[in-house]
C-alpha cells in the first residue's frame, strides 16, 4: 500500500546509516543527567497532583451541590489526565528502563507497576521484547491488529473482519482490557491449542491486578463519597474510558498509518543493525504536534525515535528527532509524520479498507528486498 519510494541502500550505506544512528545514542547517553531526573520527577508530581485534584473535584459535588456538574466535569478531565500521564509518559517509559540509570527503586524498569489493568510483567514481555524487537514482523509482533483487526493486506482475510469497524470501536473503548489479556492468548485457548490449566495459571496474576483496579476505582473511591456513590463511579469509569480511547489513538497512529509497512518473517534473518533501524523506521510513524502532544502521548508522538532508542529517556526524543529526520533525508528514506487528524484518519481508513478483502500493492514488494539482504 505504500505510496512512498525509499531509496534502496547498498550494504555500505546501510552500515553508515546504522553508525550515524548509533552515534546519536552514544552522544545522548553520555549527556543524560540531572535534567532528565528532574523531568521524570516533575511528571511523577503531575500524575499525583492531577489525580488527587481530580478525585477531590469528583467528591466536591457531594458536599456543594451547586457546583455538581462543573466540578464533576473538571474532576473527570483531571483524573483522565493523571491516568494518561501515568500510563504513557511515566509507566510506559519507566518500564522500558529509560530511567534505570537513576538507580531509584521507584523508577526501576523491572519493578514498576502501572495504574492500569494490564500487569507490568506481561507488558514487559509483549511490548518491550516482542513488539520492540520484531516491530511489524508478521507472526512475531502481536501488536499487528492485536489478533483482532486486519490492518494490513498481508494479513489473511476472513469473513470475521467484515465486522471490524465495529469491533475496533469496542476495542478502543476497552483498550486497557485488551492490553491486559493480550499475553493470555485467549484465541489459542478457544481453539484448543492451550490447556485450561495453563490458562488458569496465566490468568491468576492478571485477575488479581484486574480485581485490584476494579476495587479501587469502582468500589473504594465511590464508597468514600457515601450517597454520592454513583457520580464518583461514573466519573472514574469515564476517566478510564477516556484514557483507553486516547492510548488507542496514539498507539494505532504509531504503526498503522498508510505508509507504515509490515514485514515477513524472512526479513529478520541475519538482520544487521542497519537493517534493524531501517525496519523500525518503515514500521513506525510520528505525530506532528507541540509540546503538549509530546507529553500527553508519552512522547510516542516520536514513535520513530522511540523505536530507535526505546531505552533513552523519552524527554530527549524531540531533540533527537531533528537529527534523525536529517539522517533519513540524506539516505533517501521516508520519515513518516503528520498531524494527529491526518495520521488517525489513515488508521481509520485502513480499518475500513482491510475489513474487505485486499491485496498488497506492488510498490511495497519492491521495497522489501532492501530489508532481506544479508
Amino acid at each position, binding site marked *: 500500500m505504500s505510496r512512498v519510494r525509499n531509496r534502496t541502500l547498498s550494504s555500505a550505506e546501510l552500515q553508515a546509516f546504522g553508525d550515524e544512528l548509533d552515534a546519536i545514542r552514544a552522544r545522548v547517553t553520555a549527556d543524560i543527567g540531572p535534567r532528565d531526573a528532574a523531568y521524570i520527577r516533575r511528571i511523577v*508530581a503531575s500524575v499525583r497532583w492531577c489525580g488527587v485534584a481530580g478525585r477531590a473535584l469528583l467528591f466536591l459535588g457531594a458536599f456543594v451541590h451547586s457546583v455538581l456538574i462543573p466540578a464533576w466535569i473538571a474532576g473527570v478531565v483531571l483524573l483522565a489526565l493523571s491516568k494518561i500521564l501515568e500510563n504513557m509518559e511515566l509507566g510506559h517509559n519507566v518500564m522500558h528502563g529509560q530511567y534505570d540509570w537513576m538507580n531509584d527503586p521507584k523508577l526501576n524498569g523491572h519493578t514498576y507497576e502501572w495504574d492500569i489493568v494490564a500487569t507490568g510483567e506481561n507488558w514487559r514481555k509483549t511490548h518491550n521484547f516482542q513488539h520492540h524487537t520484531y516491530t511489524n514482523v508478521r507472526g512475531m509482533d502481536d501488536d499487528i491488529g492485536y489478533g483482532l483487526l486486519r490492518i494490513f493486506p498481508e494479513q489473511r482475510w476472513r469473513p470475521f473482519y467484515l465486522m471490524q469497524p465495529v469491533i475496533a470501536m469496542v476495542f478502543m473503548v476497552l483498550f486497557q482490557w485488551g492490553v491486559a489479556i493480550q499475553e493470555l492468548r485467549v484465541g489459542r485457548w478457544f481453539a484448543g491449542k492451550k490447556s485450561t490449566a495453563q490458562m488458569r495459571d496465566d490468568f491468576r496474576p492478571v485477575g488479581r491486578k484486574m480485581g485490584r483496579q476494579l476495587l479501587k476505582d469502582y468500589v473504594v473511591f465511590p464508597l468514600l463519597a457515601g450517597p454520592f456513590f454513583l457520580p464518583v463511579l461514573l466519573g472514574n469509569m469515564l476517566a478510564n474510558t477516556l484514557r483507553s480511547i486516547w492510548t488507542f489513538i496514539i498507539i494505532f497512529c504509531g504503526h498503522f498509518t498508510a505508509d507504515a509497512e509490515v514485514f515477513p518473517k524472512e526479513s529478520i534473518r541475519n538482520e544487521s543493525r542497519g537493517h534493524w533501524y531501517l525496519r523500525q523506521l518503515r514500521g513506525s510513524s510520528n505525530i506532528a504536534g507541540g509540546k503538549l502532544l509530546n507529553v500527553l502521548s508519552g512522547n510516542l508522538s516520536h514513535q520513530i525515535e522511540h523505536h530507535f532508542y526505546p531505552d533513552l529517556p523519552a524527554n530527549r526524543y524531540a531533540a533527537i528527532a531533528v537529527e534523525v529526520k536529517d539522517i533519513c533525508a540524506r539516505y533517501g528514506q521516508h520519515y513518516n509524520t503528520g498531524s494527529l487528524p491526518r495520521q488517525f484518519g489513515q488508521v481509520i481508513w485502513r480499518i475500513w479498507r482491510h475489513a474487505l478483502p485486499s491485496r498488497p500493492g506492488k510498490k511495497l514488494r519492491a521495497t522489501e528486498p532492501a530489508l532481506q539482504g544479508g
Partner: protein
Amino acid sequence: MRIVCPMNAILAPRPLWPIRLARRVVSPALFDFWATRLNPLWTLEQPLARLVSRSQASRDAVTLVLRPNRHWQGMLPGQHVNVGVEIEGRRLVRSYSPTPLDDGSLAITVKAIAGGLVSGHLARDARIGDLISLDTAFGDMVLPGKTDDLLLLAAGSGITPMRALLRSLAARGMPIKVDLMYWARSRDELCFVDELDALAAAHPRLHVRHLLTREGAEPDPRVDTVPLDAIAALADRRVLACGPGGFVQAARHRLDGQVAHFDAEAFSMPAAAAAGDEGEVQVQLARSGRTVQLSRGMSLLEGLEAQGIRPRHGCRMGICNTCACGRQSGTTRQLLTGDLSSEPSSQVRLCISAPSTDLILDL
C-alpha cells in the same frame, strides 16, 4: 568493600498497625510521594537516614552522623552498610562501616578519595538535613557472645569497623585481650586518635599501636615485616584485618598458619580494568550462590548460557531491557560502544556487556 553473604543484623520489630494496613492498601510509590512531603523520612518501606551532624575526623576525613528512619533494621558493630546518595540525578551507592551510636544513630567516617564521586560528595558537599539511603547491613567481622582474644589490623579507612568493635567491647568491659595495629601514611591521616588512646588508657587489656609508614626519619614497618613479638599468645588469637586489597593480602600472608582464625575485608578499589577481551574472569552470582569462569571476549549472556545458566533475556541486542540485572561490583565493557563501566550497584544488560574484571551480579 568486597563482602558477599548479606545477613540481617537484628530482626526488625513488627511494624505498627497503621503501617501494616497502609502496606496492604497503597503502593510505596504513592504513600512515599505524599508522606515525604510532610517529613522526608516518612517512607512506607525504604530505610532512609538524615544527616544530622558533621565533624572533621582527620586532615582528610569527616565523620557524619546519620539518623535513620524506623525501617532501618540495625547492624552489629563491625558490619558494613551500603549507603546511597543522589548526585546529578543518580543514586550512587558505596559501602561504609558505621559505628552504631547509643541513640540509634550511625556515625560514618569518610575519607575523600581523589576522583571519588561519593566520598568527595560526602566529605565536602553533603549538608545537614541531606537524605541518605541505607541498605541492609552485611559482613562477617562481628563478635559473637564469647570470642578468642583479638588482633585487629587496620589500614587507612579500615579503622572504621575496628572502632565500632572496640566501642562495643569497651561497653561490655573489655572481656578479652585486644591488640589494635593501625597503619596510616602520616599522623594527620589518623582518625579517632584521642578516642582510641582514651579507650586504651581505660582498659588495660586493650593495646593500641599507630604505625606511620611515611613519617619521621625511620618510618614504621608495613604489615609484611612488622614484628609481632609483643602480641601475647599470638597462636590463640582471632585476627580481623580491614584495609585496601594489597594490605589484607600481605596481612594474610604474614600470619598464615600462625593464628587461630583470620577474617578480613578488603576495599575493592576500582580495578584498573584492562582493555581488550582476552582471558577469563570470575563471575559470582550473588542470588544463586554460584561462581563461574567467563570469557572476557563474550557477552555475559552468552557466557552464562555456555555454563548452562539461563538468565531471563529477550532481544539479545540491548533494546528490550529484559536481561538487565544489578552489578554489585566489578567492571563491564559495553560491546557496542566499548565503554567501561564500574559504578557499583547499577544495572547492566547481560546481552551487550562483557566482563572486564571479576564481577558480582545479582543473579
